[in-house]
């Protein structure tokens, strides 16, 4: 990848070096403080939801997750769904689902990790979307991460995944594609769990780091995630009901 030049994009001078910011002068206490806050604030986010921002797709949702305690921690995510649209090739009795993730402004997630997120999310929604309903078609989900600065960087990926699950569900609702339940995800420390059926079924579990919660029993972690899931799901359902009432 590195050796091939990209002729399709204007890349700029080859000898340019990226900007290196000096981190030694940054007050360290401040960072730690905000990190503490963000770990406390899990489950205490203000969520702003908007539907149908992208018009040339079948359904879209825009999610702004802002921590209540620290206004500066926010994740902005735009989800758009294209499909069900006819897929070429062999006959498929079920729709095929694909998830693409892209960072629109800042690029800081490694390519391999993005692939991991995509396959994880695809697996979650394979269990959730009623794919039998859409034979011979493809449903493509595009996630565009506009901004994310959830304080301490370690927390970022997990809060992004949480936002992705919630965003995709809302976009499916906007697109009118059948899903089995309002799936939503909850985060506890660095664990993300996606639930359905009122928290009795897990459709996705993601645990990436040991240190924060290594001693805790997995069922306790899932239970903590569930609390966050229930508040997230409540927010989403309230939004959908309000949206419906407004359009009636």
């Amino acid at each position, binding site marked *: 990848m590195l050796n091939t030049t990209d002729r399709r994009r204007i890349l700029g001078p080859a000898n340019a070096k990226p900007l290196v910011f000096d981190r030694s002068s940054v007050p360290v206490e401040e960072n730690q403080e905000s990190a503490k806050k963000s770990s406390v604030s899990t489950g205490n986010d203000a969520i702003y939801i908007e539907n149908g921002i992208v018009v040339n797709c079948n359904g879209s949702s825009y999610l702004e997750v802002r921590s209540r305690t620290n206004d500066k921690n926010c994740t902005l995510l735009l989800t758009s769904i294209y499909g069900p649209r006819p897929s070429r090739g062999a006959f498929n009795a*079920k729709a*095929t*689902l694909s998830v693409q993730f892209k960072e629109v402004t800042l690029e800081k997630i*490694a*390519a*391999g*990790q993005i*692939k*991991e997120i*995509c*396959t*994880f999310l*695809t*697996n*979650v929604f*394979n*269990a*959730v979307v009623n794919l039998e309903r859409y034979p011979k078609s493809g449903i493509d989900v595009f996630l565009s991460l506009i901004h994310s600065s959830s304080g301490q960087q370690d927390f970022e990926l997990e809060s992004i995944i949480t936002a992705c699950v919630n965003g995709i569900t809302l976009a499916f609702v906007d697109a009118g594609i059948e899903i089995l339940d309002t799936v939503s995800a909850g985060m506890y420390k660095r664990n993300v769990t996606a*639930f*359905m*059926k009122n928290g*009795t*079924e*897990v*459709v*996705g*579990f*993601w*645990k*990436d*780091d*040991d240190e924060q919660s*290594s001693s805790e*029993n*997995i*069922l306790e972690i*899932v239970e903590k995630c569930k609390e966050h899931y229930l508040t997230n799901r409540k927010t989403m359902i309230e939004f959908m009901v309000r949206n419906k009432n407004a359009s009636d």
Partner: protein
Amino acid sequence: MVMSLTEKRYLQECLISKPPLRPDGRNDDQFRPIEVFTDFLPTSNGSSKIVASDGTECVVSVKSKVVDRSLEDDLIVVDVDITGRRDDSPLVQEIASILNRVLLLQIDQEQLRLTQKYSFKLYIDVLVLSSYSHPLTLISFAIYSALNSTQLPTLISSEDDLDVAELPTFHDYDMSKLNIDIPIMFTLAVCGQNVIVDPASSESDVASNGILVTWCKGKVGAPIRTLSLNEEYTRGIHPDRLAESIRLIEILAPKVLQALDG
């Protein structure tokens, strides 16, 4: 092997029943027999070949290089190549990314330190010659055996070279064994109420979900996550299945390691 809808339904029913009836007659906590060969590549520092009973075959080679620690952040690089799949296919990229991160996360980089300034950097090349089921478990077993058989040249120059402009020098033929904690990863399949280890390809095809569990330093560690084994039968699972798979690995992992070490 592509199964018909009826065959799949039959197999699914078998696996859901309690206890699960696996097509090859295994118990739910039983692995398929594997054959491991180590240290067969003369040009690499460590190598292993692993062959599973279904014909899945995986070759791992470990090579090392001396690097300046201040210039290199990641001292372990894993490269995965699966025959029949493009390098940029999701499965290959996902497996490479998981392995890279697990090894960096769980292996203490201090263990690769050579002198104050220099470290060994390990290049782990994974080649999956033929794969029928999700290859992650097998790859991680192969990496474990390869790293365990890795011999690195013995340092003869001084370890304290902070103020000396000197490159490390090594003994002409003495090698010392690499000594690090190596994580291994298990894939489990959830079929209804059952959790089965080491799913064969036909079992993966009808599983309700997959779970990836990592074992390192004598306990279950991160990452733990749900994993896609098929697109057709994926369902939500009860949280108890997660706990159950961890319990299963806690029992099995020491035995597996014993077998791999032996």
